[in-house]
């Protein structure tokens, strides 16, 4: 399709203005993260120098490295857990014929209607009774099973020709070997999508770590941000913003790398 030149200019204009507005808060935070207290008070827009003082300070002020590591461990565990649990379930739904499949499938759907926040009170006590407060398993295990993830993978598994299944039956492959040696490698793209989604949402999780962590041992960066923000007074905003930038870099990078994949995968999972 060809677009006329005036129309092109008009679209570029809109694109530039709106994307600037959308990205503004991030750029703003980035600039602030280099500013000293006095600069902030003067209301400057650009920092005088790009010194890393604030970044050094924020690692001093908080066990930020520790938090980053915690967040990373928690996010990777949830990601791997979700991939394993969801792909197993999706495989059963697509490739095994059994009685009650529709009923169990309905049960899975129904979990999407129960908001996590409505069940958080008993969940917190469950974790407490298991003595899992301030542990990685307490932070991660409840999120391993994910109806959305199961659907996403189920949609993809359904597009795998059933002849592949039959061909491996003739070759003598067991069900689990077929799952591991054929289904998983063939579905790499959806697994990557779900993995990125799982990592992103877990990294950004807020309420659950707030309930489950009471000390810094397994506390995640998001809670660290809240701490940072409430500890700092008046003029130390540069340090706070440095913390913010450090926390958002991993997920932004992930998003930039996987934007296309994520968009494709999520739309597919959502609509079929």
């Amino acid at each position, binding site marked *: *399709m060809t*677009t006329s030149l005036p129309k*092109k200019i008009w*679209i*570029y204009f*809109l*694109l530039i203005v709106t*994307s600037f507005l*959308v*990205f503004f*808060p991030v750029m703003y*935070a980035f600039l602030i993260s280099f500013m000293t207290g006095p600069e902030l*008070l003067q209301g400057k827009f650009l920092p005088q120098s790009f010194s890393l003082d604030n970044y050094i300070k924020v690692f001093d002020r908080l066990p930020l490295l520790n938090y980053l590591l915690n967040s990373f461990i928690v996010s990777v565990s949830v990601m791997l857990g979700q991939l394993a649990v*969801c792909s*197993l379930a999706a495989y059963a739904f697509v490739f*095994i014929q*059994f009685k009650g499949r529709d009923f169990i499938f309905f*049960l*899975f759907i129904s*979990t999407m*209607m*129960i*908001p996590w*926040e*409505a*069940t*958080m*009170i*008993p969940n*917190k006590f469950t974790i407490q009774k298991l003595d899992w407060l301030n542990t990685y398993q307490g932070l991660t295990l409840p999120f*391993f*099973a994910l109806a959305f993830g199961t659907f996403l993978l189920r949609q993809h598994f359904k597009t795998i020709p059933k002849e592949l299944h039959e061909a491996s039956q003739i070759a003598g492959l067991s*069900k689990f070997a077929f799952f591991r040696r054929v289904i998983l490698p063939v579905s790499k793209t959806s697994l990557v999508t779900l993995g990125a989604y799982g990592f*992103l949402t877990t990294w*950004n999780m*807020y*309420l659950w770590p*707030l309930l489950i962590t009471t000390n810094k041992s397994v506390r995640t960066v*998001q*809670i660290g*941000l*809240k701490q*940072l*923000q409430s500890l700092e007074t008046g003029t130390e*905003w540069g340090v706070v*913003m440095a*913390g*913010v930038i450090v926390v*958002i870099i991993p*997920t*932004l990078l992930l*998003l*930039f790398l996987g*934007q296309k994949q*994520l*968009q494709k995968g*999520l*739309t*597919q999972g959502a*609509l079929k």
Partner: protein
Amino acid sequence: MTLLEKPGIWKRTANGRTALLYLLPSILLFSVFVFYPMFRTIYLSFFLTDQNGDAAIWVGFENYSYLLESTAFINSMKATGLFVLYTVPIGIILALFFALLANEKLRGIGFFRTVYSSTMGISVAASSVIWLFMFNPSMGMFNRLLSLLNLPQIQWLLDPQWALLSVSISTIWMNIGFSFLILLGGLQNIDEHLYESSRIDGAGYFYRLRRITLPMLSPTLFFIITISLINAFQSFGQIDILTQGGPSASTNLIVYSIYREAFINYQFGTASAQAVTLFIIILIVTILQFKLGERRVHYQ
């Protein structure tokens, strides 16, 4: 027909048993962390509880009738309703507008797509901290902008009249990335030939938008509306960081209210009753969406 014994029950249920094995992790986790706590929440909502969250005194529907009479809860419901009304329609319209722009085939469009979707990669906590500073009465950029324009200063997060609006603005921004990504995906799934044939018929941009794009996009729109509604009802992080429910409870959204009731006031009974209310609201939203959606949405 000599050697043909009927396979026994053990053999016939083989598939069922294998399937169960594959589903077991999911079923187990869903039972422990979704179904059990849901029933437990409903159960607790009929009790007064002790400090450990165990049921102490049966009170029937008293927790609910207490909520219905409590001005705090009614305010919280009102605030939640307003918040949803502020954030969902504007958020989706903006995301749709960006998605339409970013769906044009132009040089460097990938860059713009990445920028629009970027807010999805920024956590609620991080976004809230950024916006907290932007709303800062003395140093934040909003008030600096106002003073540049010689307009009166606004106490964005401290003025009960503005607080909910301010939180809504920041929330719209946080959610735009995800909605954009989904809508762009939906737009790209539309068959190019439809546009080509309509061009041959001489249809203009807005005609195509109204007659092809929006109808073909309706399943995606339907999906993103549902998700956005549910997300809006579940907002918590931005409240906790920006306003803590204040000023004068004007931003005490339902999830924040549950959180405070349960983990600050230790009133697990009434908190559970609120949680059940949240569950029912979301259930109704989803069912309504499906009922309406079935009739109006154009599926391929």
